Structures are given as structure tokens and as C-alpha cells.
């Protein structure tokens, strides 16, 4: 069977499973729609959280980014897993005890203020829309490369599938499809990694293979070999990187805190029965995520070494078939500058003849390593599972923000449960269409805005929630001031240093690098904005009235794990 036939088969089977689950687990009430009825087991919730969190970025892009960034790529590995420790220890158990449907629910009630709720809704919408557009794009890339349909058709197919099970099943349908998607994506990620690890080092465990000696009898360690190849071609040493220590520190912190503050991850902990289950399922989620996250750096090392060995200083005419296939997608480009017919792949931009898009490393890796056709097809199905599961989780946050936090809590408080359920479905439909539009017409700055989303979550939600739980005296004036100042500062820094708004646009951005405050890049600035949020909140609080007695009682109550009851809207 050809790769394409295998891909149709595997993608077809997995899609049929997702749709079957969606029909089986339709939501009948808003409670099932928002929090899956509140009776999901910790293991199922852990798997769903893992699939929800691991997006097209984790599955498709991350190992590729690390392959090119080496040590600097560690910020994603530590940042996107370390955030779970914060989530499990500082947020999840208490928010579960609080027992409402959404993050703006918590902010609105804890800070007894409609303004705070609306600020939180706006942040949740910005963060979620940014992400979902990126997922749709990922779906389109996979479809166009492996099923050879037009990228736009790919996006539309993805939209229809997500729409079907998100709108029908709500959180309940999404949770159980995500369980299936986790299995598909982890299998799809591990199989090629294990194959390649055996091929290169003889060790079947990629996490160990990465630190083993090469299989060629030379006795050279793989990482030493790659360090050598990198410096030979003029790149930084793989295990060293070139970002400053301050910047690595700050970016890691911003990603960790941003992760802990992401609404689509937090809301997953509303679906379990008890506080105890919330803690446990955070642990299980991280364990399941760690399987992929510790394999990704190994994949990065294998892929980078394989790629350099395959292309560097080789005849263009003798390139294998995968090279030509990826050239037609435009994600791989060769320009024979010195006309010698060979590929010079070097750090020096004036001499470099090969441009490789980082996103193709994971997808092309099995082909580069000559793995069987079914493995290549499996990777395509895994990429789709990763993108669809995250897109569905985000759509749920968007629809519940609109139907619950805005329509029910602000505009039409006496709407019936049935009416609210239909509003939620309507909002999800509109959200899918908007997301699909951005997937087909991606704004040039998608990647930049994703970084902005993490910074925003770090600068806004995280301090407000942590202070809400750990600082009983925190009042609405402090929290609102903190969120507004934090977000504004973050926006200002991004607009100035990422988009160059105040200095003549995109072209000026590179020249502004020397003006970065304390040498911190816009990606890492969320950490600073977060600290400012904390400080502003605490100062303002000193000069404004303490929160009402009743709110202080709520805080005391969420600190005690027993009697969590079920999530409810009153």
C-alpha cells in the first residue's frame, strides 16, 4: 500500500471513531455541555487534559523548533510542563472546590464585580481565538501534504468535524473524543521516535537514545556528533544555544505562568467529582504529557542529525523523494547560489542555500529515516488528532464565555437552561466559522500573536486567581487595577518590540532589539508584566475598602477540600 492509501485508511478510521463517540455522548443540559456533568474519572480527565493541551504546536512544531534552537528550545520543554506544577499546586484544587463553570465565573464572584468578569471574558476570548486559528492552520497543512487536497479544503473538512462533535456533545462529547485522540497522538508520536532511536543508537527508548553512542561503531556520542556538525557549519553548539541567560529565564517563566493561566486548561478541572480527583488528574495529565515532552527533544536531535547528514554538501540531483515532495509545499526551498549543484547548508545567510521550515521536521522525520509507509501515515493521523482536540477545547471556552458569562450572567439572567444550551451551540458554530476564516486567511502575525496569548494569560489571569485564593484581603479595586495594568503593559511592549508600531512598523523590529528592557524579549516580557500586576494589586488594595465579609467567607471555604459538591451556576 502507498503512503497515501495508508493515510486515507488511518485518518478515516480515527475520524469515524471521533464521530461515533460524539453521537454516543450528546449533551442534554448546560451542565453536561459546560463540565460534562461533573462526573469524569481522574484518568479520563487526565487523558483529555493532555490531548487538550498538546496542540498542533506540541505535536508538529515543537520538536522542529528544538531541532533548530538546541538548548534554547528548552524554554518550551520546561515552560509548558512546569506550568502544570503551578496549576496543580496553586489553582486546580481550589477552583474545583469553588465549583463554577468558567474562569470568568471565578473572577466575577471572587471580586464581586461585573467589570472584573467582563475583563476576564475579554482575555479568555482573545487567548482562545488566537490559539484556535493556529490549530485550523495545522489541520490544513497536514491535509494538504498527506491527502493532497487543497489547504483550504483541508481547513473546511477540519471545521466540519470539530463543529459536529463540539456543538453536539459540548464538554461531554469533547472529553471522550479527547481520550481517544490522546491515544492516537501519543502512539503516532512514539512509534517513529522508537524506530529512529533503534536505527541511530540501538537503544529503543528515545529518552536514553538521545544520550547514547551512535550505532555506526565509531563510539561517538550522538550529542557530541551533533555539536561537532553544528559548529562545523557555523551554527551555535547544539547543547549551548545563543540566547542570554536572563532571556531564557524570563521566557520560561512567562510560558509556565501562561500555561497555568490558560482558561481551556483550567476549565478541565471543573469536570471531576472531588477536589482530590482534581489534584490527581493534574498529576496524571502531566505524566501523560511528559511522555511526549521528554521524547520531543530526542526526536529533535535525531531529526537534526539525520537532516544534516542527508543534505549537507550532497548533490541536489541525488536527493530522495521526500525532498521533492516537501519542495512542492514550499516549506523546503533550495537555491543554488554558487551553481555547483550541491546543497550548502550553513549558518552564514549569504552562503546558505537551503531553507527549511521548522514545522516539517516531525512530519518529514519518518520519511527522512526511510520508515515504512504506515508509520508516515500514522504521523498524519496523530497531527490531526492533536490539532482537533485542542481546537475543540478552545471552542468550548469561547462558546461558554459567550453563552454563560455574557448572555446569562450579564445580559439575560433569567434565560432558561434549554435556551442557554442553544445559545452555547450557536456561539460554538459562529466561533468555528471565524476560526476557519483565520485558518484559510491567516493573519501574517499568527506566530507572534500566540506568544502574545501566553503573555496575556500570564499578565492577567494568573495573579488575579492566585491572589484570589491565597490573599483573603485582596479586593476588587486591587485585582481590576492589576489586570488592567498588567495587560496594558504587556500589549504596549509587544506592540513596540514585536510589531514596531511606534517606530515605523515591522521592518524596524530587528533594530529595536538593543532597546529591550533589561535585555528581555517580548516573549519573556509576560513575566515582568505579571510581577507588575502583583505589585499594583497589592499597593492599590492598601488604599481601598476590604472585600465584604461574605467574599472572605468564600475564600475560607475554597481552601477546605471537603464538600465540593457538583459544579453549578448558582
Amino acid at each position, binding site marked *: 500500500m502507498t503512503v497515501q492509501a495508508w493515510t486515507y485508511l488511518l485518518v478515516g478510521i480515527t475520524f469515524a471513531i471521533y464521530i461515533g463517540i460524539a453521537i454516543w455522548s450528546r449533551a442534554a443540559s448546560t451542565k453536561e455541555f459546560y463540565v460534562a456533568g461533573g462526573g469524569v474519572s481522574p484518568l479520563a480527565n487526565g487523558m483529555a487534559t493532555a490531548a487538550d493541551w498538546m496542540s498542533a504546536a506540541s505535536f508538529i512544531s515543537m520538536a522542529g523548533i528544538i531541532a533548530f534552537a538546541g538548548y534554547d528550545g528548552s524554554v518550551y520543554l*520546561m515552560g509548558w510542563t512546569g506550568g502544570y506544577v503551578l496549576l496543580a499546586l496553586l489553582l486546580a484544587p481550589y477552583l474545583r472546590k469553588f465549583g463554577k463553570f468558567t474562569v470568568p465565573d471565578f473572577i466575577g464572584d471572587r471580586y464581586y464585580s461585573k467589570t472584573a468578569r467582563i475583563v476576564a471574558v475579554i482575555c479568555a476570548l482573545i487567548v482562545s481565538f488566537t490559539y484556535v486559528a493556529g490549530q485550523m492552520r495545522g489541520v490544513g497543512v497536514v491535509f494538504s501534504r498527506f491527502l493532497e487536497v487543497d489547504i483550504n479544503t483541508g481547513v473546511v473538512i477540519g471545521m466540519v468535524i470539530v463543529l459536529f462533535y463540539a456543538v453536539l456533545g459540548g464538554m461531554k462529547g469533547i472529553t471522550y473524543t479527547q481520550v481517544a485522540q490522546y491515544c492516537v497522538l501519543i502512539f503516532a508520536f512514539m512509534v517513529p521516535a522508537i524506530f529512529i532511536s533503534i536505527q541511530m543508537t540501538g537503544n529503543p527508548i528515545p529518552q536514553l537514545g538521545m544520550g547514547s553512542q551512535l550505532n555506526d561503531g565509531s563510539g561517538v556520542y550522538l550529542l557530541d556528533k551533533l555539536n561537532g556538525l553544528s559548529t562545523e557549519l557555523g551554527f551555535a553548539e547544539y547543547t549551548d544555544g545563543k540566547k542570554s541567560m536572563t532571556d531564557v529565564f524570563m521566557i520560561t517563566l512567562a510560558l509556565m505562568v501562561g500555561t497555568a493561566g490558560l482558561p481551556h486548561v483550567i476549565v478541565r478541572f471543573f469536570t471531576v467529582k472531588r477536589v482530590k480527583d482534581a489534584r490527581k488528574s493534574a498529576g496524571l495529565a502531566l505524566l501523560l504529557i511528559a511522555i511526549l515532552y521528554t521524547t520531543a527533544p530526542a526526536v529533535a536531535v535525531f531529526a537534526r542529525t539525520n537532516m544534516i547528514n542527508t543534505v549537507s554538501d550532497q548533490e541536489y540531483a541525488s536527493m530522495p523523494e521526500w525532498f521533492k515532495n516537501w519542495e512542492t509545499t514550499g516549506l523546503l526551498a533550495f537555491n543554488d547560489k554558487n551553481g555547483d549543484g550541491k546543497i550548502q547548508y550553513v549558518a552564514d545567510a549569504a552562503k546558505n542555500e537551503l531553507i527549511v521550515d521548522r514545522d516539517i521536521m516531525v512530519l518529514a522525520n519518518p520519511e527522512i529515516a526511510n520508515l515504512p509507509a504506515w508509520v508516515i501515515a500514522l504521523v498524519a493521523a496523530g497531527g490531526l488528532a492533536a490539532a482537533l482536540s485542542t481546537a475543540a477545547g478552545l471552542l468550548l471556552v469561547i462558546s461558554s464565555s459567550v453563552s454563560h458569562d455574557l448572555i446569562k450572567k450579564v445580559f439575560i439572567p433569567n434565560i432558561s437552561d434549554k435556551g442557554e444550551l442553544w445559545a452555547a451551540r450557536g456561539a460554538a458554530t459562529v466561533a468555528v466559522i471565524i476560526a476557519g476564516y483565520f485558518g484559510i486567511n491567516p493573519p501574517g502575525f499568527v506566530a507572534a500573536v500566540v506568544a502574545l496569548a501566553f503573555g496575556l494569560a500570564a499578565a492577567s489571569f494568573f495573579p488575579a486567581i492566585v491572589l484570589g485564593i491565597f490573599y483573603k484581603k485582596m479586593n476588587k479595586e486591587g485585582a481590576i487595577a492589576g489586570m488592567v495594568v498588567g495587560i496594558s503593559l504587556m500589549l504596549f511592549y509587544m506592540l513596540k518590540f514585536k510589531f514596531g508600531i511606534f517606530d515605523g512598523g515591522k521592518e524596524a523590529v530587528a533594530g529595536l532589539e538593543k532597546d529591550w528592557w533589561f535585555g528581555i524579549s517580548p516573549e519573556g516580557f509576560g513575566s515582568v508584566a505579571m510581577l507588575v500586576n502583583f505589585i499594583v494589586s497589592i499597593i492599590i488594595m492598601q488604599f481601598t475598602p476590604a472585600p465584604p465579609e461574605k467574599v472572605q467567607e468564600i475564600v475560607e471555604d475554597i481552601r477546605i*477540600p471537603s464538600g465540593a459538591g457538583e459544579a453549578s451556576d448558582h
Partner: protein
Amino acid sequence: MSEKQKKASAYWKENVRYLFILLTIWFAVSYGAGILFKDALNGIKIGGFELGFWFAQQGSIYVFVILIFVYVRLMNKLDKKYGYNE
């Protein structure tokens, strides 16, 4: 302060102490070993791994997973001690 409130605040104090200890370890393996002291640790090699690099790309993640499960155990015990388990 009522008996009930006293119990609640004692529970909370112990909880916060656990958080402090666990987050110190969380900081030490990632920001400490993986970033601030990475260059010094890279002088030590285990197999093909330089130690600082290993902490940044592998070790800190393993420790994160262990930390959460230790936390789950500690809290389950604490809940039992104060009769908050259900």
C-alpha cells in the same frame, strides 16, 4: 475563633508549608539546574549528556511529574488528618 475555624487555619498553614517546599524544588531543578547553573553543571557528563543540558531538556520534566504525585500523597494524608477527606 471557633473550633472549626482553628482547624481550618491549621490545615491551611500546613498546606502552605508543603507548597513552599515543593515549589522550592520546582524552582531548583528548572531555573537552578537547567538555567542559572547550567554552565557549571555542563562540566559533568553522564553518558552522552552534559548535566545542565539534561536537566533543561529531560530531568526537570521528570521531577515535575514526581512533585505533583508527592503533592497528591501529602494532601490526601493531610485531608485525612483533619477529617476533610471524603
